[in-house]
């Protein structure tokens, strides 16, 4: 039974369709990410859930209740904004207490819950600081505490980590996941960072130009991308043009000098998509020449010029000798490590 449901939601600004035909059911306690490049409509969708924008078409339901008639102030959602939008004239504790005040929580209970919320995000002792005297990471935590203290039905996170530096972002990701697991709040995260989406979410909604490209677990979207866009957007990938050869029996999938039994249901021109870390160097396979070899500590990155165009290969640094720049190699992969789409690659 869906907890939060978006039913064919669309949003138009004038003639421009920003979100189109967006359907999604979110289970209680689930962590969902809207992932896509800027301008794909992910923030617009989030704002419609929050109630700051009205959908042009479609319905948004929370526990089967239509949200259309409920103003944002009454939806009971917790939101962390990209800019945090903390109240600069209030201390951290006053910021966190604001939502409880609006809910007329008695003073004693309020103080207790504010203290607990700040402690949960690791800011015990910062109660009397003003936001502008805090670091970006600390402000982020105050914003999170402010959104969580009201025990929201759904927690909406609008690119909350994009203003933090890389190391802090990683720490916050882990912390965010732990907090969300502990309190079990249904969460929707908007992000353009695929690593963030993959490490945090139960399911990812990949969006492009206002439409859903794929909904799936991080593994599904990474391993079995539903479209060229998804495979390109989620990590690096190699797209090789291939053909289905029906002359031989059984039919074979051919890409350059690489061949394998053809998957069922496809014919003619196809695109073979393989992740760089799934390609190995072997005796047979796609013939290629190594252009550059980059050492990156725990792995090697090879850029190759193959008979099917440029290819990237990532090999674990397992201590074994690796081919050098200029070497002729054969690229090979297991059939289960590729995804095959009909049509020539873009």
């Amino acid at each position, binding site marked *: 039974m869906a907890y939060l449901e978006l039913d064919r939601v669309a949003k138009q600004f004038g003639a421009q369709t920003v979100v189109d035909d967006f359907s999604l059911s979110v289970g209680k306690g689930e962590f969902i990410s809207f992932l896509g490049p800027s301008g794909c409509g992910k923030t617009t969708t989030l704002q419609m859930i*929050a109630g700051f924008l009205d959908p042009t078409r479609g319905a948004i339901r929370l526990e089967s209740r239509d949200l259309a008639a409920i103003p944002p*102030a009454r939806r009971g959602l917790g939101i962390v904004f990209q800019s945090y939008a*903390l109240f600069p004239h209030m201390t951290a504790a006053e910021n966190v207490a604001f939502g409880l005040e609006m809910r007329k929580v008695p003073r004693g209970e309020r103080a207790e819950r504010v203290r607990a919320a700040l402690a949960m995000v690791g800011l015990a002792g910062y109660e009397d600081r*003003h936001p502008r005297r805090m670091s970006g990471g600390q402000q982020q935590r105050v914003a999170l505490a402010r959104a969580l203290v009201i025990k929201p039905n759904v927690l909406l996170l609008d690119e909350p980590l994009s203003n933090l530096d890389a190391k802090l972002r990683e720490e916050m990701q882990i912390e965010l996941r732990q907090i969300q697991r502990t309190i079990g709040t249904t969460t929707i995260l908007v992000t353009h960072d695929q690593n963030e989406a993959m490490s945090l979410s139960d399911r990812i909604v990949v969006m492009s130009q206002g439409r859903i490209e794929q909904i799936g677990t991080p593994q599904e979207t990474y391993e079995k991308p539903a479209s060229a866009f998804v495979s390109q957007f989620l990590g690096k990938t190699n797209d090789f043009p291939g053909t289905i050869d029906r002359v031989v029996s059984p039919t074979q999938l051919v890409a350059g000098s690489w061949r394998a039994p053809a998957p069922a249901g496809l014919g003619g021109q196809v695109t073979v998509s393989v992740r760089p870390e799934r390609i190995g160097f072997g005796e047979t396979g796609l013939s290629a020449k190594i252009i550059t070899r980059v050492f990156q500590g725990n792995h090697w990155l090879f850029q190759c010029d193959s008979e099917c165009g440029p290819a990237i290969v990532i090999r674990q640094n397992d201590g074994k000798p690796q081919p050098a720049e200029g070497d002729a190699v054969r690229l090979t992969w297991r059939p289960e490590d590729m995804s095959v789409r009909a049509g020539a690659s873009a």
Partner: protein
Amino acid sequence: MSMAADERNGRAPWALAAPALMLFVGVLLIPLAMTVMLSFHDWGQYKGIEPVFILKNWREIATDPYYAEMFGRTFRIAILTTLLTALLGAPEAYILNRMDGRWKSFFLLIILGPLLISVVARTLGWALLFGGNNGLVNKLLMSAGVIRFPIPFMFTETGMVIALAHVMMPFMVLSVWAALQRLDPQIENAAMSLGAGPITTIRRIIMPQIMPGVLSGAIIVFSLSASAFATPAIIGGRRLKVAATLAYDEFLNTLNWPLGAAVATLLLVALVLIVVGSNALIERRYAEVFR
């Protein structure tokens, strides 16, 4: 070597600032010092100005209740004008800030309008609107049933405050506007998502953040209103004098320059004290918002 560099670095700012500094000293500080000196000179109907050092003018201002009344009126008008501009200007700036691009620039032009028109022409316009019992404003109010008898606007403090508030409005609106620009664009959404209604949001979240803008606007409006000349001269007439018109009359009608200089100096000193004092108060009170 480094000492020479330090020396050169030490002199460079002075050298670069010298032209502006000379202009500042020449056209502001020297005349100001001369005015202050003048206020200690003696004056007589037949002997004219005598360059001596006496406290006669200052004693006269301190003891004669006439001057207390003048300064009281000046600051009363300035305070009322400031309140009126704050009460109207702050909401005006807030509404303006939420408007669409095209309407925003149109209404901004209307608000800036008073600054584009000569102060005399604009004030004479108000005189026409106010003028006597048959003034347009009184006729309108009476026909709308708001008042039964015409309100005297001309030669009253009410009229002065209204006309001054009109011309001072842009300063307040622009000052609040600047404070609104510093607001996080999501801040109202944040307040709403936490359960605050529109009125609570304005009262608890927006108001405290634009208060520094209102107060700095108030300082500008107050000091300009207290030293305004044309509007009090035309709307107030000869009878209802304020500090600025009083100084003018002493200089040009009575020809008692030393007394006029003392009035002008007192006005200046009072304004500087009020502005500097309130500025310090505001900065201390709103330290967190200003950061």
